[in-house]
């Protein structure tokens, strides 16, 4: 295992060459979109607050995700994890630095991207199949064909039989599976996930993680997975990026050399190698979490203090 300090971080492609070759083979068979590498270089993002001052969410942020790699980003809350995702998706522009996907700088909405949000981004007025079919429909696929694709994806996430339900008739875990199908139906080259399973209970979360891994291993888009759950990050990812307290920047990058396919995430967390990695990364993350905690605590004791 190597630790990359932020400055010297490079694409760690060689470790993954073998797996991504296999993935490429799979893609050629299915005709899916080519997974695209993601690169953030010296990215800074500032927002104007309603009171007129500037708030820096992300500062001098460098990150590289190789094609078809699964990268998890962990960090204390409010460190700009979600902001970096929105910049990769093209929903926000960086104030400084460059974001590029597949070697091309991001300009407008990044093509071939799917985004999974912490809150359900399902249209409550559409049926389950209608929601999943939205991706192809937005790309101009005829409605009939889009719906048959959607049915096929619902079968893959084990929701056959619920096609004509509305989202409010499903449980939280089922809604997540609908979101997953909706995100993957366009066969994205990059998949951005913003604490997608954050609101789920522990058991459902583990089930969803397994389901996600299984589907990702079939389609292998490049993934950035933002989470505050370190165990989840290690169990899923090839690479874990630890961010500092906000304005966030990369503190350290860890390679997760647990073999693939990983199998059940509930079991992998008892393996010695997992525990070792967890211990190392937590050492690094804990400092930042404590710093973030101290900051909010002091802001709370100062009346009117801006956090």
């Amino acid at each position: 295992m190597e630790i990359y300090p932020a400055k010297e971080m490079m694409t760690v492609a060689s470790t993954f060459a073998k797996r991504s070759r296999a993935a490429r083979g799979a893609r050629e068979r299915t005709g899916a979109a080519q997974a695209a590498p993601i690169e953030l270089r010296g990215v800074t993002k500032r927002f104007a607050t309603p009171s007129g001052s500037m708030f820096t969410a992300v500062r001098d942020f460098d990150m590289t995700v190789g094609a078809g790699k699964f990268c998890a980003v962990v960090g204390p809350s409010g460190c700009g994890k979600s902001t970096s995702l929105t910049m990769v998706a093209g929903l926000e522009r960086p104030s400084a630095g460059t974001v590029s996907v597949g070697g091309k700088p991001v300009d407008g909405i990044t093509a071939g991207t799917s985004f999974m949000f912490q809150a359900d981004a399902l249209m409550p007025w559409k049926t389950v199949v209608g929601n999943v079919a939205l991706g192809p429909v937005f790309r101009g696929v005829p409605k009939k064909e889009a719906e048959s694709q959607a049915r096929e994806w619902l079968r893959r996430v084990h929701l056959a039989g619920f096609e004509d339900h509305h989202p409010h008739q499903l449980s939280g875990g089922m809604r997540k599976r609908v979101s997953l199908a909706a995100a993957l139906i366009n066969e994205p080259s990059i998949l951005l996930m913003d604490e997608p399973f954050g609101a789920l209970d522990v058991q459902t979360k583990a089930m969803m993680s397994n389901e996600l891994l299984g589907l990702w291993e079939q389609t292998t888009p490049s993934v950035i997975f933002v989470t505050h759950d370190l165990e989840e990050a290690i169990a899923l990812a090839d690479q874990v990026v630890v961010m500092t307290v906000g304005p966030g920047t990369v503190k350290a990058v860890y390679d997760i050399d647990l073999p693939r396919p990983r199998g059940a995430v509930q079991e992998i967390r008892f393996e010695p190698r997992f525990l070792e990695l967890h211990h190392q990364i937590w050492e690094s993350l804990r400092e930042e979490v404590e710093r973030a905690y101290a900051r909010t605590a002091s802001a709370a004791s100062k009346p009117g203090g801006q956090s």
Partner: protein
Amino acid sequence: MSAVPVNRSSQSTAPGAIGDLAAAEEAAVTVDIGTSTRRRRMWIWGARIATLVIIIGGWQLLTSAKIVDPFFWGQPSGIVKQLNAWVQHGTTYGSIWLQIWVTFKEAVLGFVFGVAAGVIAGVLLGMFHFLADVASPYIKIANAIPRIVLGSLFTVALGLGTPSKVALASVLVFFVVFFNAFQGVREVDRNLLANARVLGASKLAIIRHVVVPSALVWIIASLHVAFGLAIIGAIVGEYLGATKGLGLVIANSQNNFNPNGVFAAMVIIAILALTAEGLIGLLERRLLSWRPPSQSEAAAAL
């Protein structure tokens, strides 16, 4: 991870695994709830009918005993007689059905134009902040003006026929629908918008698939008030100058010191408005059938 039961009847049948005793108990509870609901409903209807009898009966008694002067305040029996006379012999301006039809037509046309304009303007201003910022002071001013006065202007400019009433009704309807549509568009879930954009939706597709369905809850809520305003627009328009319509019938009754005529026309208008309200309710249930039953509805369904 189980689906919420969709079918209400499934709530009253116990799952087999629980056993016969539990099933019998649940059945007994279900019956209990059934009878208590029925009893409650009977009481409500009883109280409603009593209220009506007291008001109408009291009115009739007070006016018959000359405690209240029926010359000024009308009398229920007189109202019934007046309605009967209109049906039998028609009004001064022709058959009563013609008057009803004219007013209804004006109200519906005004409603349709007002709703269409309100939705379009609301969606546009809701989507494009620049337009909203430019238009907002003028909208505030226009909203502050007592728009009913525009009726005089329309009567002069558009004549005594249908167009002047339709114009007045549209203006009244427009603002209610506009404000709701605008608010509805502004309240669209940011996540849904971001998701649609990432999935590659064009601006038009976003309006069609995300913005309008999402704002529909707000727009439909405004339609109930809007139809009432459309009828007011039509009636006031006729009152200000017309050759036909219920508003004219009311004005004529007023000029002839005939309060029963005014009340009789009010009864007809109320029936019209309630019918329209029922139709809008049907439309609402159809368009918003995806919505989960609200807390109060779920309780009422028990």
